[in-house]
């Protein structure tokens, strides 16, 4: 069973005034992964718009990334005050190449980079979330490979 919402580390429970809630390092990793999925979705949508002939090929991975994003967002519960970062970081859009082959190359590169990031992520998030990241990474690695056959 995967873990649910992220646990925030309570810093103390002594007789002094309660310490503020501090976000664990996994919150930053989760937010970066969310931003990465948003960037990936924008790239796929851009490729589909610029290259209508590729829209059928990109429909599957695009849907998967939307599912990843929805699932990652379920794990992020915005806190109050300084408990969690105020905003999800936004990554700059990846330019959509004009040609069909370069567009596929850009998608492959983005998928490979995302898959590599997930391997690093699994070492830094709690075990339950690590299983989700590992699965998302496998999906991304698979799409990077499958795009070779388009």
């Amino acid at each position, binding site marked *: 069973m995967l873990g649910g919402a992220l646990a925030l580390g309570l810093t103390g429970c002594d007789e002094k005034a309660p310490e503020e809630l501090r976000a664990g390092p996994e919150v930053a990793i989760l937010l970066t992964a969310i931003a990465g999925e948003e960037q990936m979705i924008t790239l796929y949508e851009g490729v589909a718009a610029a290259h209508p002939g590729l829209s059928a090929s990109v429909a599957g991975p695009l849907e998967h990334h939307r599912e990843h994003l929805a699932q990652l967002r379920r794990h992020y519960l915005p806190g109050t005050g300084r408990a969690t970062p105020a905003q999800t970081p936004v990554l700059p859009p990846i330019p959509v190449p004009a040609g069909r082959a370069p567009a596929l190359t850009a998608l492959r590169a983005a998928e490979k980079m995302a898959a590599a990031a997930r391997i690093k992520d*699994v070492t830094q998030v709690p075990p339950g979330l690590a299983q989700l990241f*590992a*699965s998302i990474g*496998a*999906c991304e690695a698979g799409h990077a490979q499958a795009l070779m056959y388009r």
Partner: protein
Amino acid sequence: MSPAIEALQALLAAEHRAVYGYGMVGARLTGTPRTQATALWDAHRSRRDQIATLISDAGGEPASPEATYALPAARTPALLAAALEEGVLAACVPLAGVRSANLRRMAAQGMQEAMIRAVRWSRTAPADAFPGLTPAEVAPAPTP
């Protein structure tokens, strides 16, 4: 048995099965695909031995292979190989959730490797957004 050893044993069982299965795959192929199957048979034997060593080092007794395995029905040897890789991928999931970060990384790498091999054999993109996970694992029911 510690959760880590239990997870390693599950992966070892999947690797035993893959080694057996790739023997069947290779026997049904010729030429380049056969060479590829042989290389992957070797890769799975190495991984099997590596996992057995990790289990021994952690104080466990590596599980022995079964005499035979019921393999999935597949129309072609390539699709059988893809199914074997999907089995290895799913068997990595418990290991991706253990306390050791090194073992989690090994599991995540193993899942990606298995997925890439499955796509190479089947020539089809991943079918699921969350390979290796059941719907209940992806979206656990809220606990009161």
